[in-house]
């Protein structure tokens, strides 16, 4: 409690995202997913399960909808915009798929509804989830338009990794018990490790120095990961990362509910950006032969 603090820093505490927000961002981790390159092989999802100690819930619970898939390949067989006749034809060309992971929205709808502030925005631009603080009200998941938050409906660890599979658990992060919410963290343990290493060596984190498990595993290199912070500075400059370059090339900007592109042919888009969630993941539309 500090009343003095309130008065001296009042204007700072009153800054919303439109005025730049409270944080002085150190990073703004983001992604670009090229759907042209995505072949729907699910390797990213498998890598995510291995890296993040995701519980394997088994067939029965999977059918009940109690699975934990932080990273998932969504598969759609129809494209209603094409019209009735074309849908059939479309089916012959195969499914439409999109890898979905937490979009780490800058104006995340899940954050303000948490009663105990277990989910919050870090100075890294991440949408963090504090497992220890979570009381399991599940409001965040209800309020996520992407439905990318998953709840530990059971103590999955009890049966998820029968011996000797428990030896494969990643020691860098926890195994969650029942009653907490969890979601993709952009492999925050790797981000931490890279930042710590950079600090020890007294330098900045280099672009591509580390990758989240999904990006690392993707056989076609459809997922690009990196720092979007330079997007905010006009022209980018020397420190422009590869992912920021992609965003700039596709004329996708943060902080907008609708992109104004000079070239409408450019494929970049963000999912549901009209909801003003300001996601940090950009998708590049698939080009199809039809």
């Amino acid at each position, binding site marked *: 409690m500090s009343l003095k603090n309130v008065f001296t820093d009042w204007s700072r505490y009153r800054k919303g995202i439109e005025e730049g927000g409270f944080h002085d961002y150190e990073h703004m981790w983001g992604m670009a997913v090229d759907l042209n390159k995505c072949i729907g092989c699910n390797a990213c999802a498998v890598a995510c399960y291995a890296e993040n100690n995701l519980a394997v819930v088994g067939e029965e619970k999977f059918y009940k909808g109690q699975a934990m898939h932080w990273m998932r390949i969504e598969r759609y067989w129809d494209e209603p915009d094409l019209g009735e006749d074309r849908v059939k034809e479309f089916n012959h060309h195969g499914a439409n798929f999109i890898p979905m992971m937490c979009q780490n929205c800058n104006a995340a709808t899940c954050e303000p509804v948490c009663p105990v502030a277990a989910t919050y925005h870090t100075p890294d631009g991440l949408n963090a989830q504090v497992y220890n*603080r979570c009381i399991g009200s599940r409001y965040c998941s209800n309020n996520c338009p992407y439905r990318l938050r998953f709840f530990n409906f059971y103590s999955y660890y009890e049966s998820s990794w029968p011996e000797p599979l428990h030896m494969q658990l990643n020691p860098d992060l926890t195994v969650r018990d029942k009653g907490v919410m969890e979601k993709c963290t952009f492999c925050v343990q790797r981000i931490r490790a890279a930042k710590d290493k950079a600090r020890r060596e007294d330098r900045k984190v280099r672009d591509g120095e580390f990758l989240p498990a999904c990006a690392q595993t993707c056989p076609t290199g459809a997922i690009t990961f990196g720092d979007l912070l330079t997007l905010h500075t006009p022209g980018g400059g020397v420190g422009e990362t590869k992912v920021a370059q992609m965003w700039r090339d596709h004329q996708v900007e943060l902080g907008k509910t609708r992109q104004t592109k000079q070239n409408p042919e450019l494929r970049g888009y963000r999912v549901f950006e009209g909801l003003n969630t300001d996601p940090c993941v950009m998708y590049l539309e698939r080009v199809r032969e039809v």
Partner: protein
Amino acid sequence: MQSKDINEDIRWAQINEDVLRSLENPRMGYWVAVGVCLALLALAIIAEIYQYRVGMGVGNLNWPHMWDLYIATFIFWIGMSHSGTLLSAILHITHADWRKPIYRFAEAMTTFTLMTAALFPVIHLGRLWNMYWVLPYFSDRGIWPNFRSPLVWDAFAIFTYLTTSALFLYIGSIPDLAICRDNARGWRKKLYTALSLGWRGDDRQWRNFRKTYLVMACFLIPLAVSVHSIVSSDFAMSIMPGWHVTTFPPYFVAGALYSGCAAIITLFILLRYFFRFEAYMTMPILDKTCKLTFAIAMVWTYLNLIEFASVWYGHDKVAKELLIAKFTGPYSPYFWAMLILGSVLPFTLAFEKLRTNIPVMFVVSILLNVGMWLERWMIVAPTLSLSYQPFAFDVMWANWVQWFIVIGSFGWFGLLFLIFVKVIPSVSMYEVKEMIFHRRHIANKDIAAVMHRRATDPKPAGGQPSGASGSTPGTPGLEGA
């Protein structure tokens, strides 16, 4: 049909006798009712222990159906609590004195439904052993709850409402507890002596009592409205189609008053029958309550239609799809049932023949509440099944764990109410006396005076002792003794 709200010739001693009789040693039926309530509660406890030990998944909750019956029932109970406030506070400040014989149990209902409702946010938590983290307390680590979250608003609102309505109920019954004290023996004497706080009915006490009661009534009205607006914020503050609706606060408040009034009719009939309160819970009062319920039902219907219309013409694709799915999708039987029970059935209240028929009203009032429960469920479930992300479209049906807890909450409420009717007089004795006194000596005398003046020479009535206006010496003021 009897035309007066209450027979003005009831002796005051008779009122005490009739009401105190209801507190006497319970009969067999009472213990049967207690047994039923305990059995229902036991079901809930079994289910809750199972859920507590194994996890939230046992109730069939899944992704994306993170909330279901618990939250729906939470809104249902908290909604029911609103009519106690309506009857006692709003009708008090508008001087509608027909509320007097029936407001006590309505207020008790307010408090007990809140105590029931407050259980649900706790039950539905994944880690309910940490639920105190929602409360703002000083911590060495400087951690606070998130004051931005509608769930924290809920915690504040429920705490405030529960405190205030419990105090309102208690303070309003202090004069009656004093009557109990004067007539009780044994352990009850001790209990009521403690509860009545030394009330003896002197003018200083009455004066402060009247002011306090009025002030509390004035504060309870905006509080009740704010409480259900805040509950509606759980949905209206979210981004989901079908939840993100501007009209939700008034819609919820109307629904709350509606289900509460229906519950008052149910309890009215039960108390009237079991405690033989025919002289106090009279047919004209039931008639007025029914008319009030009908009016609120129409407000609720109107707000429902407004919501449909605004979604339809707003042409937000996702919200419109959801609305159509409510009418045609997997939840449609329940949605239609809600519309029929909530908007069509209340028209029975519009006919005097039906609304003065006690068995019919008993059934109707229960069905109205079934409709209102469905309404809450139809707010929660369809949105979760059909939101923005097509990959997450899913329909889920609750299993026995959730149902047991929902059913058990009725047992819990029934138990609290059964304890109440044997401890606190469920008809306010002193207010019924006031009502009779007022009608005999103030309201009717004015009419009598006018009639008298018209009949005879317009001569000013004089000769009254100074200061004692409004009561002529010689008229028997009180009877009995």
